[in-house]
């Protein structure tokens, strides 16, 4: 494999940021706070309010690897068009953290609005003159709503959290978010026994709202308005969605070791399982073990999968590295096991709280010797749910490790989505022979390909039959699972494993292709890049560039992906990693000059990819096609037709 690693550089300097124009239902807000200051409830209250007004919205937490004290940001977006990807330039900045106020203000685009605490030492107004500033007396307002209480030892701590609700109210006024919706959102954040605290928070929001109504200038450039009609959505993180997949996928053994950003997946799953899979006698239909490390976590999952459980483990990049030896064993010994990798920025500890798609290539080939694995690539929280279920079934059907590669952006951020559907298929059990099957067949060889699909029959330990037992090993083995160093046994087995992969390939989630008959340009992406990509396509179309889109959902790659490339002159492969990992795989399998049609677009700074990160480099390429790295065309005729001024490359 020799991937052409010439990623298109993002070049923000090339395009001068323009100011904003007034907008309705096209809102982007950035809130800068201090980690651990309890701003999450405030942010979620706004998100829920926007949702209740029928406006598509999303919220992203950009947070440090820290428990308390370091800067953290929350990005809120509301968009009538349904764009919920990351956006680079907020229209409104809320500065609650003086430590980052300067940088945050300087990064704004002209025309933005900046709300800040009037008790900062810094006066942000001295920094620039092309944005509007609104100092807000946060402390005064919050103390009106939540008067000091000397009998409450936790008052200061609580005040620190409640103060965030003041900006909720200010924003409600600024953006015309309905206060009833805000109140509803706050109440949702403080259910049950927390209701009393909820009322305090509502008072704080109301104080902010009243102050803003009285004190802000009348212009409201960036507002929202209720979108009539009914819609029924849920708000959920990918990790929680995957945890529901654990619950409804019938997982019976979950082993894990804490690692950001996957820990919450296991914790949510534990919570769901304890609520819904414990019988009247307090007995559990599942086992969860927090292992001593990732080696033990995968070891237990492999042992459980071997003995017949629907077993899985959840981890992130460094954890998958530790699991590599076991994955190689499970691949070769053919043991069902699911590994969920919520990807973060590596190498090493890297940026543990920042998102990435940097493990994709490694997961596909993890192990030692020839290894290829099934990898599912969820592109939404719904797919985090349904692909977890699918992974558990695929592992049973194909007796092999199955990866689900989610990422921090999908996994830890809240997304609006339709309510999940109950699985429409029974749990897959795969080719497991029972005592009765063995009686009927009168024979059993663990690694004999009876059906010609590469998938063999297996028995579970505990099967009371003289034919049932076999010896599982990572060493060379023959069809009867006996030790063998014979060259023909070895090769036959490896070839069968390749055949098994081919059997599985068309049964994986198919790519989602949106073909535009007018498009010469194709876009390939996967995972959480989807949302930014959908938006990018509209922006490109506005610039006169029609595109088709192929969203890859599984590895090994489906034929439809290659056919998609054949139908387009240039195909941009958009990924959130440096090394164009999916493109590397495409290069390995594409024939002839097809590989030259691929152009990588790579985003890898730790923030979720935004539409702009896709549009800018593609526009640059499409508008000046003679720059180096322009793909070799199929024929001079095509070049002439597409770009009359270009000389065909002589490469």
């Amino acid at each position: 494999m020799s991937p052409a690693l010439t990623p298109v550089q993002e070049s923000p300097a090339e395009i001068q940021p323009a100011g904003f124009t007034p907008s309705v239902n096209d809102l982007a807000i950035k809130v800068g706070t201090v980690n651990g200051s309890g701003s999450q409830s405030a942010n979620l209250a706004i998100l829920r309010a926007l949702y209740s007004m029928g406006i598509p919205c999303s919220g992203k937490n950009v947070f440090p690897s820290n428990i308390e004290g370091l800067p953290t940001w929350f990005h809120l977006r509301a968009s009538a068009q349904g764009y919920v990807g990351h956006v680079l330039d907020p229209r409104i900045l809320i500065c609650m953290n003086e430590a980052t106020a300067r940088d945050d203000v300087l990064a704004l685009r002209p025309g933005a609005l900046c709300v800040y605490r009037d008790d900062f030492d810094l006066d942000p107004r001295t920094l620039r003159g092309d944005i509007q500033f609104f100092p807000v007396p946060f402390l005064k307002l919050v103390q009106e709503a939540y008067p000091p209480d000397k009998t409450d030892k936790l008052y200061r701590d609580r005040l620190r959290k409640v103060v965030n609700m003041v900006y909720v109210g200010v924003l409600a006024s600024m953006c015309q978010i309905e206060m009833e919706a805000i109140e509803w959102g706050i109440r949702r954040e403080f259910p049950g026994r927390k209701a009393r605290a909820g009322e305090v928070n509502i008072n704080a929001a109301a104080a902010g709202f009243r102050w803003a109504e009285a004190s802000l200038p009348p212009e409201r450039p960036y507002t929202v308005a209720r979108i009539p009609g009914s819609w029924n959505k849920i708000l959920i993180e990918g990790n929680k969605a995957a945890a529901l997949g654990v619950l409804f996928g019938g997982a019976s053994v979950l082993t894990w070791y804490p690692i950001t950003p996957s820990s919450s997946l296991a914790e949510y799953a534990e919570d769901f399982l304890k609520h819904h899979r414990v019988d009247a006698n307090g007995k559990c239909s599942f086992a969860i073990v927090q292992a001593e490390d990732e080696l033990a976590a995968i070891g237990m999952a492999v042992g459980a999968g071997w003995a017949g459980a629907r077993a899985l483990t959840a981890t992130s990049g460094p954890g998958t590295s530790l699991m590599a030896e076991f994955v190689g064993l499970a691949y070769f010994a053919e043991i069902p096991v699911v590994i969920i990798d919520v990807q973060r920025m590596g190498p090493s500890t890297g940026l543990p709280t920042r998102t990435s798609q940097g493990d994709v290539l490694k997961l596909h080939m993890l192990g030692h010797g020839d290894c290829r694995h099934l990898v599912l690539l969820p592109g939404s929280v719904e797919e985090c749910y349904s692909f977890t279920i699918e992974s558990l079934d695929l592992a049973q059907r194909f007796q092999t490790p199955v990866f689900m590669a989610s990422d921090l952006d999908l996994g830890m951020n809240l997304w609006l989505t339709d309510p999940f559907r109950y699985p429409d298929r029974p749990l897959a059990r795969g080719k497991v022979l029972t005592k009765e099957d063995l009686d009927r067949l009168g024979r059993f060889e663990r690694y004999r390909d009876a059906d010609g699909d590469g998938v063999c029959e297996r028995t579970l330990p505990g099967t009371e039959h003289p034919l049932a037992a076999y010896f599982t090993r990572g060493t060379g083995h023959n069809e009867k699972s006996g030790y063998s160093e014979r060259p023909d046994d070895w090769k036959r087995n490896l070839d069968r494993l390749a055949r098994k992969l081919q059997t599985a390939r068309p049964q994986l989630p198919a790519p989602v292709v949106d073909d535009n008959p007018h498009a010469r340009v194709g876009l390939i992406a996967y995972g959480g890049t989807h949302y930014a990509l959908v938006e990018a396509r509209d922006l490109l179309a506005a610039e006169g560039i029609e595109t088709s889109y192929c969203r890859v959902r599984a590895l090994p790659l489906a034929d439809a992906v290659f056919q998609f490339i054949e139908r387009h002159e240039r195909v941009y492969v958009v990924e959130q990693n440096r090394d164009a990992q999916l493109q590397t795989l495409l290069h390995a399998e594409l024939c002839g000059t097809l590989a030259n049609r691929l152009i990588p677009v790579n985003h890898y700074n730790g923030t979720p990819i935004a539409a702009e990160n896709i549009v800018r480099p593609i526009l640059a390429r499409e508008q000046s096609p003679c720059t180096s790295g322009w793909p070799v065309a199929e024929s001079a005729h095509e070049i002439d037709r597409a770009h009359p001024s270009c000389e065909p490359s002589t490469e």
Partner: protein
Amino acid sequence: MPNPATITVHDNGHSFNLPTLAFQGLPSTLCKGCGHNSITSHLIEACKSLAVNPYKTIKMSGIGCSSKTPAYFLSASHGFNALHGRMPSVATGAMLANHKLLCIGISGDGDTANIGMGQFMHICRRNVPIVYIIENNGCYGLTKGQFSATADLHAHLRRPGGEENQVPPFDLCEQAITAGASFVARSFAGDKKQMIALLKAAIAHRGTAVLDVISPCVTFNDFEGSTKSWDWARAHESPLHELGFVPRLPEIEVEQTPGEPVRVQLHDGAWITLKALRHEEHNVSSRASALALLEESHENGEFVTGLLYLNTTTPNFTERLTLVDTPLALLSEDMLRPKPEVLEKIMQTL
């Protein structure tokens, strides 16, 4: 007349005959005279004499000479030759999937004390139900005799100009006791009577039962002065007690015999009897006493064998997890997948 070629297995209310072949395995490919081979034959004897159900038994191992052992006994049982030092996690997972199985794990000193020390300590800590046999020869046989972490201090590698081992060994029984194993014993591959009694007791125990068995490596570590040699072990073995095992048989009522200092009932109703030979002060249910005894034996250059520690009351790992009675591996869909109403209800909370 019982047929000597078959063994009657009683399990879960039914019984059936199995050929004795089902308790044996493939011929050993280890060196002639290897202590491991002796352990294998003791193991077969113990399984036969208890008539364990091979179908409900799993044989787990890591990597190394010792870890080949599962191929040499109980051919009617599923076996898993896993990764170097990682057998404990695989065995744990298998027991989570099916807690009704009998798990026999075979490891070596390198597999346990070097690469696998972490997992060994944690399986002891969890008290996972497993018979954990360490075939301890103080060296790496398969890779030609390198030291393991149980090699004697100042031992020399068996090659011309062989380097000296500069670091003292781990005592794996001490480690197991400290970590929380509920059954810890030491024996010698050449002591058939004691080995079989200990193996039977370990099989009847339902928790982590660690058997550290000195098992001479005839090729790399069976020379004069080696504490893992046949001669040294025979000369220095100091059995703690005369060990008896009385299985639970419906037709025999076990009676207390006066004069016998320790009798302990195991989980399946069997009894072990410990008639003290020396160290009369040792209390088998006290970790402190067991550790003191082991430390003392090091100071005296003795090789204490027998049951060092036993706790039959602490719950094992699968009991702690309060699993449903049916093994997780065999649960039907209605047990594994909640009803649609549950999903609907959860959706309403989001």
